[in-house]
Every structure is written in C-alpha cells, then in structure tokens.
C-alpha cells in the first residue's frame, strides 16, 4: 500500500460514493478499521485506504431485547462500555490482537466481525459469526446492501452475514453490524488440573465436556507457557464454569469428583479466573517475542496434540478443548511442514497469524484450499466485488 490517499466516509452514502469512484478510476481499496490486525494476511498493495473510522456510533442498544446495532468503525472500548451499563457482554469473547501482534490503535466492532475474532467461549457458545444477526455493507459496485436482521431466529433468504464474517474485508465494506448480546454472569470459577501432558490434558478436557456441567472454557498451558501467566505454575489445564454463584460452586465440586483420577486439582478464585482467561483469549504469553512466527491452528480436539508432538518444536497453547492451537516457533515458520502435519492428523487449517512482511508476501498466510473450493470462493468473492477492488490478495 502506498499510503498516498486515504478516505474516511462519514456515512453509508459517502462510503457508497467512495467505492463507486474507486470503480470508476480503477483503483483498489485497502479497507481499514482500527488497524490493530492489519499485519494479518498477505500484504495488500492498494491505491487508496478506505477507513471505517468515521462510521461510528451505537445505533441502537436494547438490553431487554439482547441486541446491539453499531456502525462498523465504533471502537470496541465504546461497545464494551455500553454493554457494561446494560450488565451484558458479547458471548464470543472477541480477542484483541494488539498484544500478540504488537500493534497500536483501537480495535473496532467492524474489525471484530470482519475477522470473526472469537475467544475461549467459542467452542461451546459459538463464534462471532453465530452472534451476528445482521449487517449493512457496501458491495464492490458501491451499493448499500442489508443482510440478516435484528431478530434471534431468521431463515429468510441466503445467510449472507456468514460469509461476510471472517472475510477480512475482501468481500465488502461493512458499515453497520447487529449482534446478539447476553447478560453478564453472576459468578465464575476455574478448576486447574496440574502437571498434565498435552495428551493427558486432551483426555481430561474431553472428559469434562462429556459431563453435563456446562464448562465454558477448556484450555491447556504447558509449563513454559503457564510460567508467563500470573498465578499459574507448572503445566496447567484450565476448566471454566460460569453462572449463578450457587450453581458454579456446586458444579465445581462435581467437576472435581469427575476429574480426580487425572491428578492434582486446585481452584482459581473469580479475579484470577478472569485474568487467566484474558491471557488465553488474547494469547498474551506470546506477546513479548514479536519476531517469532505464530500459527493459529484449528483441528479436531483429540488430534491437535498429536500433531504438535509430531512437530516436536516450538511452544503450543491449546484452547477450545485442545482444538485451537496457538503455536510459536523460533525463527523458521516451517510452513510446509506445519500444514502437512495438520493434514496427516485429521485435517483442519493453519493460519500464519504473525510473521514479517517478507514471509507473508511469499507464502500463503491462510490455509490453501482444495481447488474446487478455492474456485467456488473466488466466484463468491466476484459476486460481492466484481472488480476485485477490496483488499486484493489479502486472503491469498
């Protein structure tokens, strides 16, 4: 991106106008929210930066209806503050990439949606894509389009909000998003299993998820990673319970009994529980080594630790019952090898979430797709953006 020109539309019609001009002038557009995730994906070479940062403000927030509608450029701090006053939250725990990527600026709700940024609760409560009820966007022809709506159940027509969520600004400029929000919980606690290997942890987490105790977080931090998190020591397998206080206490006792055979157990009080899950959510254990590449790998929970064992290097933080691996390697990102091992262990996908510009320009950052799916995805992209003007090449 040459950075010579930057547009900051203040409303949807200005955004439409900006896109139509770009089409007319055959210019490509780099879509940017807060810019806190702009080093993810292949480096984008575009003629103009199209910023959502002036498309701000909460349009409607009805705590009783559990719905929030906000313009795409609204900072997450403003979203969180509003939800706090309504004693509510986003259930998918959007992760903040700033610590991991060493980036500056304010993340926006549009950026969260565009990257489907979802945290530890995702494996039981759904991702951003599951909470996204509707969206307004500007397509590649400069038309303002609405998809979905504001109600909890809606099967009216094709569900266009799903592909938009996680499209990294390659399909459209999001201008407004409608999200389901949920009440804050009264209490939380985290049960810690000590000293397990990644394989034992996968078994323990699967055992926890086979109970009816509604575990809402299941992560494993090997010793080297746990050592960087306040309050943890030695390899720690974390199991979170949330809800009404009496229920959390009772379920915690039951979970302890169910997992006693896995060895030593302890319980984190609420403040420590919140802090460790914040670390897992934002991958802060990998924050202070910005030059080392980091992978984000999604696999079947029972297979991910086998893949990491086969790789036999780097540091791995396991979330989502073990199915989400944050892998930090020293120096070489081992692109071919990592993806080959993922394929050999039941499949999934590996995204090179942190890497320098040269590497991101020379290897596929997003997991390469089977040819027919890649061709289909390309046709879908052209259905939204016929001239390929939005973030060209970012997803490979």
């Amino acid at each position: 991106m040459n950075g010579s020109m930057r547009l900051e539309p203040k409303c949807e019609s200005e955004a439409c106008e900006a896109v139509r001009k770009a089409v007319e002038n055959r210019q490509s557009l780099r879509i940017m929210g807060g810019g806190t995730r702009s080093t993810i994906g292949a480096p984008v070479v575009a003629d103009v930066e199209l910023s959502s940062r002036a498309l701000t403000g909460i349009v409607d927030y009805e705590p009783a209806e559990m719905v929030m509608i906000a313009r795409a450029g609204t900072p997450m701090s403003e979203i969180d503050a509003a939800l706090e006053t309504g004693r509510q939250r986003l259930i998918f725990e959007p992760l903040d990439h700033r610590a991991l990527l060493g980036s500056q600026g304010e993340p926006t709700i549009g950026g969260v949606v565009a990257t489907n940024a979802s945290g530890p609760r995702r494996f039981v409560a759904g991702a951003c894509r599951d909470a996204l009820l509707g969206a307004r966007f500007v397509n590649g022809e400069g038309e303002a389009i609405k998809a979905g709506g504001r109600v909890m159940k809606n099967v009216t027509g094709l569900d266009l909000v799903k592909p938009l969520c996680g499209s990294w600004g390659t399909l459209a400029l999001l201008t407004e998003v409608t999200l389901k929000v949920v009440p804050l919980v009264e209490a939380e606690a985290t049960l810690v299993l000590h000293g397990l290997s990644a394989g034992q942890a996968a078994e323990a987490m699967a055992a926890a998820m086979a109970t009816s105790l509604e575990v809402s977080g299941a992560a494993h931090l090997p010793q080297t990673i746990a050592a960087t998190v306040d309050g943890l020591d030695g390899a720690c397998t974390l199991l979170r319970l949330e809800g009404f206080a009496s229920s959390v206490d009772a379920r915690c006792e039951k979970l302890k009994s169910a997992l006693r055979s896995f060895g030593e157990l302890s319980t984190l009080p609420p403040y420590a529980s919140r802090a460790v899950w914040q670390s897992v959510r934002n991958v802060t254990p990998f924050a202070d080594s910005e030059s080392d590449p980091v992978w984000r790998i999604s696999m079947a929970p029972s297979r991910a630790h086998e893949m990491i064992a086969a790789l036999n290097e780097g540091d791995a933080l396991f979330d989502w019952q073990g199915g989400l691996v944050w892998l930090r390697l020293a120096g070489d990102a081992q692109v071919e090898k990592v993806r080959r091992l993922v394929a050999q262990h039941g499949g999934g996908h590996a995204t090179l979430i942190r890497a320098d510009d040269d590497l991101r320009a020379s290897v596929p950052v997003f997991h390469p797709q089977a040819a027919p799916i890649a061709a289909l995805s390309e046709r879908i992209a052209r259905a939204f953006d016929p001239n390929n003007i939005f973030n060209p090449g970012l997803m490979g």
Partner: protein
Amino acid sequence: MTAIAMPPADDAIMARRAEIAAALREMVGDDGVVAGDNELRAFETDGFTAYRFVPLVVVLPQTTEEVSKVAAYCNANGIPLVPRGAGTSLAGGAIPQEDSVVICLSRMSEIIDIDYANRAATVEAGVTNLAISEAVSDDGFFYAPDPSSQLACTIGGNIAMNSGGAHCLKYGVTTNNLLGVTLVLVDGTVVELGGKHLDAEGYDLLGLICGSEGQLGIVTQTTVRLLAKPEGARPVLFGFQKSEAAGACVADIIGTGIVPVAIEFMDKPAIEICEAFAGAGYPMDVEALLIVEVEGSEKEMDDMLSRVVDIAQRHDVHVVKECQSATEAALIWKGRKSAFGATGRIADYICMDGTVPLGQLPHVLKETARIVDEFGLRVANVFHAGDGNMHPLILYNVNDPVEAQKVEECGMELLKLCVDAGGCLTGEHGVGIEKRDLMLYQYDKRDLDQQMAVRAAFDPKWVLNPAKVFPLEARGSGSVQAA
C-alpha cells in the same frame, strides 16, 4: 386469485421424460428411479399441502457418487433438480415443479461415525434428526436442534432449511450445531466443507449452505455437534390474565441471565384446543399461558425456577403450576406438543412463522387478533416466545375456496406485520414457495440481487430448486438469469 405460480414447465424437457428416466437408471439402477404416474404422486407435495405438482422423475441415490452423477447430468441438460429429504417442509421447500427431477436422499441413512472425544457425529443426509440423538442417548449425549417433525425429518433437510425447534433458545439452531458437510455442487463436483475442527479456513461456506433451501448444492453427509445431556429438565407453567403481561414476563426472564431451554407461549384459543385434546390440566380462566423449562441438577432447577417464579409474580401471574413429578412435567408438555395435531382435529389451518423483536410481542399479538378478525377467521397462537418466533395457526375450511383464498391473504398480512415490527418473514420454516413472493417486502431489490448473485456463483444456470425463495419477477436483472 393469489395462487403461488411456478415457473412455466419446459415442454422440451417434459417430452424427454422416458429418456431422462432411462439415463437416471443407468446411474442409480432400476430400483433407484421412480417414474410411474401413481408412484410419483407420493412426491407431489410436502408439508405445505395446498400446492401439488407431479414431478417428471424421482431418483433415489445411495451414494455421494450417484448424487454427483445425477447433478452433473441435470446441470448439463438444464433439467431442474429438486432435493428432498423426508418432505416435511411447511413452506413448500421440497415441492417439485412438473419439469423437474426430484432427488430424494432417504436411502442415504447410515450413521457413519460417533466420536465422543470430539463430540461429533458423522451421518448421511437421509438420517432422521431424532435418530442421531437416539444413537448417542445411552452414552449421555444428544443432538440439540429439535424441530417438531424430528421423528421424520432428515438432517439433510434440517441443513437445507436451518431448522430450529423448541430448545434452540439455549442451544441454537442447525447452523450453530453444524461442523461439516460433504456437498455435491451442481456440476457434480464433490467438496468437503469443515470437519471436526471449528471455523473455515476461508469464507464461511458452511454458514452459507445452511438454510440455502437446496439451491447451492446437495448435502450428502454431515458432521454435527453432540452435546452432553443435562442432568434433568423441569417445566413450570404460568397463566396470565393479559397477553401483554406474559410478553413482558418473557423479556424479563431473558434479561436476568437465566437461560431457560424453552419458553413457550399459548393464547386462550390454543389453551382451549390443547386442553380439550390432551387434558393437560391447563388453567381455563387465563388469556395466556407460558411454559418455561429449565435444565440442570435438582438444586439448580429449584434455584432457577424460584427466580423465574419471582419474576412472573412481578408481572401479576394468575396461576403458577410447578411440577411435583415427571408425570406432571410430561403432561404439561403433552398439551403444548399436541397443539398442531389438536388444532388439525377441529379445523384446517395454516401456520405462519415470522419472528419479531421480544419487545414487540404484545403489539404483534394484538394486531394479529385484529387482522385475523378482519378476515372473518379465527387464530390460535402457540409459539417459541423466548426468541420471538411467532406461530399463529389460522383456522379455516380447506373445502371452502373463498376461505382458502382468504386464509392465504390473511397469512401474508400477518407476515407483513412481523416485518413492520422489525422482524422477518420466517424464523425456522424457510421461504420455500410459501413466502417467496413476499421477499421484496422484507428486502430491497438490490439486497435480493446480491443474494441471487451469490446463488449464481454456485448454480449459474439455476438448476437447483429454482422455483423457490426468490420472487419470479425479481429475477433476470444484471448477471442473474431467470430460471
């Protein structure tokens, strides 16, 4: 006449029936093709029985490879291809057109893999919804979405329509419980989307497929999420003397952070119909009834129910009926679950399915009563109140052509009411042909053009279920070809 039109049948295709049947027999064997006039009648409609069209041929493949061959053949020959599971759609999603081949996946009904460590089941598309839960029940698991047709409906059909059910308030609908599919594209290409891992490596195609009503491809196999069964479940019944109070009570329960598995609403006509049929012991001196069900251990349920009862009392609840036994709980649900059947015994009915914001429930109920009254018809409301998914049952006599037309018009007015209240045309039944011509009421032309452009990325010639979802008059602009 307001009858829903199908695209005109293509005479050239109609004339090739014998040849098409012969070609399909080559692909799936003689026993996999239905072409006799009487046998074809079994496929002329689905759960939306007001419309019937006998298809050209029905094909019953047994493997993904056979589905692939059939799709490629129909695509190459421009023959409309209508996917079908059990045919329980209430919106006409599986109703064929006369020049179409129906591809019915009921013979693909094998459970392939149960994987508790990854809480996933892999099954063929023709497996019924309930069969998945039954296969894992003894081991303490279940598959959460539970449409009321779950005994008959197939998982492939659930994916096509993104089906919900009474318990989706807590567990979400099909799209939230879907991990992967084997999808046959219209040209016969077979792709695997998702698997036992979460989220897509590129665009969320799984999310796009789910609820696409058989227009983007044919799902032959799927991996779905299994969940550990709750320790127990218990309903409580509330009777209110004003519908508005019941509506406000629902919003309050949700707002406090209690997540009941279900909140079901019944109005007075529905209570009377269900009580007469099921003898559930419902109070008869109330205007509205709520059934709230919670899950957990005995102690958790006690705790949650006492909170729920406190909230109901703040809304002047007239009758509170807590269950002392499993028998009482079953009786409370028996009334609700027999609502459609019991209504069918006293009259014919059509069931609408719009969703509205929770705060609009009282207004929408009041307006529903007014509109139905204007048409000189009667209505019973039984619905999933926790997520605002209305189900007004409009009663009429199917043998009275004047009433039959009035009921269709009345239903359309009720759906417009839902859209005007900030909601949508359909919460869980789908658009099909039933609501197709109302799509422009909810969406602008350019919104639909965008959807149709995405549709065309999958099916450029509009071969797959082409008569559905998009109004016929809205087609044919820009890059989108008319069917």
